[in-house]
């Protein structure tokens, strides 16, 4: 299998980048998309060229470190899938594949396809936790949590923090990411005590980091590898209103 990659190359955050074309042959349909890039990088080394920088770690769709725009879509042509889970069988022999980094002002480019997503960590820092020290916990079954509630919390907690929601949003909004985390904790009895403060502070930080506002187009939930629903955003908005009234 042979394809033409057009890949964003950018040396430093402050330098200008451009798409560069690479013809790659010797690929198979069983290869993952990232393995195809690995293959290209090996060819580049042998040609004495610098390799393309891209991110990955677990390569099984859970760590959230990989993520690029492929032919104009976050994580490639399929819904609800990470870049590492994409395989070359999704492309045809002879295809041209355009690969770009996440595009969002709050995710500045570090090099080539690698962006800085530490803005997500800073949102987490503002209250995405339950203030309780190690060693202070009551018996686990002392607080009953109905399956339905626990399942809803789990649905929201499944977020892998890849940033596809932001990258695909026309406003670069982090509403899906932020709301999922808030709702995970706010749903559980353990998280209730800090509910209003959490909502206020995380929302504030989300804006502080420069993420845009949500206009509810639903583009994010299509790309989210965990299929996190935009109803989370509606709930966040409602909680923000509640936090203003009671917080």
């Amino acid at each position: 299998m042979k394809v033409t990659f057009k890949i964003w190359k950018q040396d430093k955050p402050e330098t200008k980048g451009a798409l560069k074309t690479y013809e790659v042959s010797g690929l198979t349909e069983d290869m993952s998309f990232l393995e195809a890039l690995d293959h290209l990088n090996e060819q580049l080394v042998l040609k004495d060229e610098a390799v393309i920088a891209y991110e990955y770690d677990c390569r099984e769709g859970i760590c959230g470190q990989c993520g690029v725009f492929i032919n104009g879509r976050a994580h490639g042509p399929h819904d609800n899938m990470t870049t590492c889970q994409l395989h070359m069988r999704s492309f045809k022999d002879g295809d041209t594949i355009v690969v770009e980094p996440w595009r969002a002002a709050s995710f500045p480019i570090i090099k080539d396809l690698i962006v800085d997503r530490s803005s997500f960590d800073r949102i987490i820092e503002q209250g995405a936790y339950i203030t309780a020290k190690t060693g202070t916990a009551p018996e686990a079954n002392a607080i009953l949590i109905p399956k339905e509630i626990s399942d809803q919390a789990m649905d929201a907690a499944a977020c892998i923090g890849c940033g596809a929601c932001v990258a695909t949003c026309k406003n670069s909004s982090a509403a899906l990411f932020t709301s999922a985390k808030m709702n995970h904790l706010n749903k559980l009895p353990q998280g209730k005590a800090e509910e209003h403060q959490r909502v206020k502070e995380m929302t504030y930080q989300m804006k502080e980091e420069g993420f845009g506002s949500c206009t509810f187009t639903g583009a994010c939930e299509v790309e989210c590898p965990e299929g996190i629903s935009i109803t989370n955003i509606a709930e966040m908005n409602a909680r923000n209103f509640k936090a203003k009234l009671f917080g």
Partner: protein
Amino acid sequence: MKLDSKIPEGKLEDKWRNYQVKSQLINPANKKKLNVIVVGSGLSGAGAAATLAELGYDVQCFCYQDSARRAHSVAAQGGINAAKNYQHDGDSVWRMFYDTLKGGDFRSREANVYRLAELSAPLIDHYVQQGVPFAREYGGVLVNRSFGGVQVQRTFYARGQTGQQLLMAAYSQLYKMIRAKKVKMFPRSEMMDLVVIDGKAKGIIVRDLVTGALKRYAADAVVLATGGYSRVFRLSTLAIGCNGSALWKAHKRGAYFAAPSFTQIHPTALPQSSEAQSKLTLMSESLRNDGRIWVPKQKEDSRKANDIPEEERDYYLERRYPSFGNLAPRDIASRAAKERIDAGYGVGRLKNAVYLDFKHAIENFGLKTIKDRYGNLFTMYKKITGIDAYKEPMQISPAAHFSMGGLWVDYELMTTIPGLYAIGECNFSDHGANRLGANSLLQASIDGYFVLPNTINNYLASVLKEEHPNTNHPEFAKVENEVRKHIENIMNVNGTKTVDHFHRELGKIMWNECAMSRNKVGLEDAINKIEKLKDEFWSEVKITGTSNDMNTELEKAYRLADFIELGILMCTDALQREESCGAHFREEYQTEDGEAVRIDDKYMYVSAWGYNEGNFKMHKETLEFENVKPTVRSYK
């Protein structure tokens, strides 16, 4: 040096309490003057960093990923064990202790294993408090399921994403302490070497992976929480970045490496499909609760799985191990799969897999229940293979997974270098020669949250009066220069072969000779081959770009340079142990029906290897069993 495991006095049940009663305390005003470096931000690293910070220590935490949340604990799927006995099925701390000790084929320390089981119940309390959405019954109580090697239900889980959910809890708690300015986090920062001053660990040299700059960090104690090293096989279930370099550097600075050859091969990963493959995705062991493993009774059967009638299927685990069946422990299930595949019964395009079938489970419990239990695993399977496993069986194959071996640690989790601790997968402590499923998240968490924060005081109290380490000390400059030289040497080889080429070669040697089954001739041959590969690496590797910049090829190269050396030690260790135990199966030591033959009178010890200028010297920690009698480990 004599190995002192520092096992406390008293009865097994009282040892941990006795230890705590006698351990030193440090007053809060002094704690904040003490600085601790934690390398790694997975369950053990983040748990330790957050807890040490809560106790008042000044903590610096490092990880090579872009965020602490990526650490490979995230990928654990199935669950975490705890002796809560919520299912009223006869579980207890003692039973969990015994299961774990037996699962490890009596090659771990009684006192450590007992502590692991003892602290498991409060750990579940802790995670529930931190907001982990564990699976629950409609009435609101926690649910359990079974895992391999165990006949009670003691595994807690959050869908097939338990590791992720526990890591999110640890990461959140870590960020709580970052906000409180008690922890400083350094992502995209890789430990390159350990700085030892006057025999004590006093700091690390770190490479900033964005700029390539080398930086010095000093501390009163250094904690390694850097995970496993199964990427030495290249193809493994581990994240691509996982590496053994921090361990290896510490080993070269004087920390003993224990049982390096004890490596778990997981029975249920996706099979390799091509040479270019970089990763073998794990399918959780929990699938074996409901899935049945089989191969066709006829060799090289080319029919589709669903066309093979029931009477022509060989459910070989149920046949060989009737009392545990599909829930036989991992080492046994992997070897049994290898036996069938090698005998010509393998399935799939490359005939390197076996079937994991849910047909009966779906008939018995309904599609909805199976979807509820394993939905995300089936989805993941479909994304990767394109196959709908609700309609036809999954194809699975054994893959390198967990490192039971690691730095030798005593009861306090301190290595043989004073002030250097190893926690989680990177130490050798609780799993012996084979780890039971759902004990990995457990051990990482217990070490990080409960053990280390209680044991590190003894050492820190002793250094309180000493001068604080300073990065201007000449030893820092010396080690930094050594690191710089090492990187230059790699960059300057400028040969003709890629790093991945060498990694593939190393992986092949290790997989063929030092994985599921080993023998003397093969291991000796492997050592020779790896020595040659090492020479070839240092004369033929090629890296482009520079070292003063983000350079992913360079990162791969220096990690591989360490893997190559570690590979030699793993084979050396496998060679000296002339018995079969747990995951270490020596072909010369087996019964007629292919079961392991353990030789307790000669090998009831933990091998702990010292390093001296390229030579390894073995020391022995003899294992004493005062409370259980090691028996032949049978799951029949």
